[in-house]
């Protein structure tokens, strides 16, 4: 009798535990009473965090360095200045943990977002090493094996090689207790694949990894971003008028501001311009298009594929590039995937189909790994503009309570909000949210 009761109790408890754990698996940490002030996702994406809400961060010794990744490589003369990879460091005097930061699409090692993260982690006692996105032309030219970036595994291998080369040099100067990695946007996506690679190769044995606003499927996200440029009134033929009007308005605010270098300038300028969502989408699309035009041309020069530049034609540092710029500006990232990226890798792996390739460039592809990798956590926003409707659910489903979903913030708009900064730092110092 007694034992029967115990058994049924145990079974019931077990059932409850199972139910409860599956419930927890499916629900991320949802943030309540969140104080980030911008509710419009486009505004959040463009403006970021208003100054009175940002974390209080110190000035730090953030120094640029350069490193040769492929000593044998002949750099195309037109990109002679990109023979070495540029990166930044902020180093502690004493023995400390080290964190690598990977920037998002088109962003450099010393861009605002990486610099702010560097400040937060340096303040928390970390050595910081910040690298550009593999989509930045300096990285493509100096550190990409093929030049044809956007390949989840190959980009991760390139980044991993860069980390290792940097560590070869830094290891002589500093004492490190443990290694960590984080990145935002595409950099967050890269960080996931880098973590997986590290599990196989075990050079760093990353202790903690944080993915900030990563895409789920690269192809879905670039399609969304490509389409945003259609918001330019009158289409691409009015590209210059659109940009110059914006610039004009911006300059007007700039000239009227008493202190245009003040950190709240961008926010004030934005308020004065009073842009609508369509214009903001057009602005985001434009900025993305400028990055993609530059990237595809660089990839074409490095790989000599014949995408916009005739194959075999060698450009030099004095060459006039106007025509390549004009042509590349008319092409989206999706064109790059279909007409350059896919045919390029198809030659290497003849069996692969287009759909398989598109499916493979996603976090879904490594979902099994991600669901069990306890060291990896995610910080995301429910209203992120680079996700298709419903895609956000991927994170609670796969990461469970290792995913924190903020209700607002757009795409990376809340990264400098004080709660988010505290969250980022706590992920690496305590392993959990504050």
């Amino acid at each position, binding site marked *: 009798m007694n034992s029967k009761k115990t058994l049924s109790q145990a079974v019931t408890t077990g059932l409850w535990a199972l139910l409860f754990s599956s419930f927890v698996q499916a629900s991320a940490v949802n943030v309540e009473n969140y104080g980030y002030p911008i509710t419009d996702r486009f505004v959040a994406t463009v403006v970021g965090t208003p100054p009175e809400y940002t974390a209080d961060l110190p000035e730090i010794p953030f120094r640029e360095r350069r490193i040769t990744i492929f000593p044998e490589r002949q750099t195309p003369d037109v*990109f002679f*200045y*990109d023979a070495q990879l*540029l990166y930044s460091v902020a180093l502690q005097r004493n023995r400390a943990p080290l964190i690598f930061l990977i920037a998002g699409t*088109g*962003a*450099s090692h010393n861009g605002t977002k990486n610099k702010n993260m560097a400040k937060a982690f340096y303040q928390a006692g970390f050595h910081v090493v910040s690298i550009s996105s593999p989509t*930045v*032309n*300096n990285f493509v030219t100096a550190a990409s094996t093929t030049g044809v970036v956007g390949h989840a595994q190959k980009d991760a291998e390139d980044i991993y090689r860069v980390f290792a080369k940097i560590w070869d040099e830094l290891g002589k100067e500093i004492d490190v207790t443990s290694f960590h990695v984080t990145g935002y946007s595409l950099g967050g996506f890269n960080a996931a694949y880098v973590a997986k690679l590290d599990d196989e190769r075990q050079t760093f044995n990353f202790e903690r990894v944080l993915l900030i606003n990563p895409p789920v499927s690269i192809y879905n996200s670039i399609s969304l971003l490509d389409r945003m440029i259609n918001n330019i009134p009158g289409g691409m*033929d009015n*590209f*210059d008028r659109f940009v*110059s009007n914006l*610039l*004009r308005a911006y*300059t*007007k605010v700039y*000239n*009227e*501001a*008493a*202190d245009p270098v003040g950190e709240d300038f961008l926010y004030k300028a934005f308020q004065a311009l009073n842009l609508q969502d369509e214009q903001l989408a057009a602005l985001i699309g434009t900025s993305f298009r*400028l*990055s993609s*035009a*530059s*990237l595809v*041309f*660089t990839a*074409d*020069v490095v790989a000599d594929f*014949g*995408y*916009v*530049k*005739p*194959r*075999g*034609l*060698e*450009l030099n*540092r*004095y*060459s*006039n*590039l*106007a*025509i*390549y*710029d*004009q*042509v*590349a500006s*008319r*092409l989206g990232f999706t*064109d790059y995937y279909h*007409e*350059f990226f896919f045919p390029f890798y198809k030659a290497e792996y003849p069996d692969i189909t287009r759909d398989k390739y598109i499916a493979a460039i996603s976090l879904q592809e490594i979902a099994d790994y991600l669901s069990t990798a306890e060291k990896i956590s995610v910080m995301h926003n429910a209203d992120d503009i680079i996700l298709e409707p419903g895609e956000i659910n991927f994170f609670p489903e796969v990461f469970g309570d290792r995913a924190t979903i903020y209700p607002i913030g757009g795409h990376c708009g809340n990264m400098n909000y004080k709660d988010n900064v505290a969250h980022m730092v706590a992920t690496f110092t305590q392993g959990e949210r504050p």
Partner: protein
Amino acid sequence: MIQRLLSSLSIIIITLLLAACASTPQTTNQVADYPRPIFTANRLLPPDHPDQLAVYDPWEGMNKRIYNFNYHFDRYVFLPVVRGYQWIMPNFAQTGIHNFFKNFNDMITMFNSALQLAPQKLAKSTGRVVVNSTIGILGFIDVATMLGIPRPVEDFGQTLGHWGVGQGPYLVLPFLGPSNVRDSIGLVPDFYVRSVIQDELLKSDEAQITTTVLWPIDTRANTSFRYYETGSAFEYRTVRWLWSTKRDLDVQQ
């Protein structure tokens, strides 16, 4: 002072002469000899499509050479000096020195606002100079900004533009970077005014020399632009367009 004026003049004249003499190097390769790429202008651009970022740049070959020279000068000379300065000089001193030079520039703005017959800009810049030169101790403290006095910036290039002179050909100046023929000529009177003020204000040779040495260092330290680090593969022409657009807007303001 005359010597410095002459040296600055000679740089500009030499630049212009170089510009006039230098035959533009062949920058367009013989594209026809190579297989056609997947995407060509014919395929993507509408016929007669103007280059939306076009800027009149007849001396592009020479400009690119100077642009390259500036990159190397920056990398091996100028920026190391700036970093040394930032390492030695305490932050508050750097700010003070920067304010001091801003005060000089406000005087240039006064002079040009007068030439443009622009009373508001003249009043603002005069107000700034008066407040900063007195309460602000020779300009080292920017009291005017604390008081919320806006800071218009006008130079002789803008004055010429104000009276209808166009930018002329794009010009990359050695050491100084992107400019155009109009603004390059405008450097001369601005430099002259500056020298006169400097002679009036600073009596000792040491002060004169220190000011002359620190001026370019402070300017570079406060200019975030780095050659070939904009992240654009088309940097030369993007910067050229942004610069000339900015200068047009500066004149219209």
